[in-house]
């Protein structure tokens, strides 16, 4: 069966510090991968998606970036965090269907 992992589960970072969130998927190959953010009181905003290694599409302009160094690994990064980057970050995958399967999420608080 397929499993999706995200870490860390929670993170508190000061403004201006770097960020690296990691997502890995097990039990499948060549998945589509997605990064979402859920800000307080808001819905799910798609940040990035990837259909293959090294292929990243950005949905919204921001100071975040994403990379896919391996088939089942998706990384969300920032060089300098802003207060507005606080939120709940979710990684998701799909392969051959529209049902996206989400990871447990990372709660990021920028102070």
């Amino acid at each position: 069966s397929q499993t999706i992992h995200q870490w860390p589960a929670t993170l508190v970072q000061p403004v201006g510090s770097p960020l690296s969130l990691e997502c890995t998927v097990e039990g499948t190959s060549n998945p589509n991968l997605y990064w979402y953010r859920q800000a307080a009181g808001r819905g799910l905003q798609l940040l990035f998606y990837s259909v293959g290694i090294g292929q990243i599409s950005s949905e919204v302009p921001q100071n975040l970036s994403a990379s896919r160094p391996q088939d089942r690994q998706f990384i969300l990064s920032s060089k300098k965090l802003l207060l507005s980057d606080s939120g709940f970050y979710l990684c998701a995958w799909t392969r051959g269907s529209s049902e996206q399967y989400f990871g447990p999420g990372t709660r990021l608080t920028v102070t």
Partner: protein
Amino acid sequence: DQQVKQNSPSLSVQEGRISILNCDYTNSMFDYFLWYKKYPAEGPTFLISISSIKDKNEDGRFTVFLNKSAKHLSLHIVPSQPGDSAVYFCAARPPQGGSEKLVFGKGTKLTVNP
């Protein structure tokens, strides 16, 4: 421009009664719709979906209805249980190949009271 709208931020029902969650969309090209359930501090879990060629899909206590002419879908939960208390997201798929991107609504928080 919000293409998928869930106009009720919250809904409260009694245990055993029906819960009806609504979702409206603006893009008539959406061809697939999904509902997700999310507990606090967890990732959303897929609940049920419906293709645009159907008007109803049922799975146990959960039924999704699609009214294409009104660009409206709804999720019915019968009977509602306290464990159903969660935030429910409606999502729609644009007709594009490869990316399988979904457009999500802002969610409706359902509270089922014992």
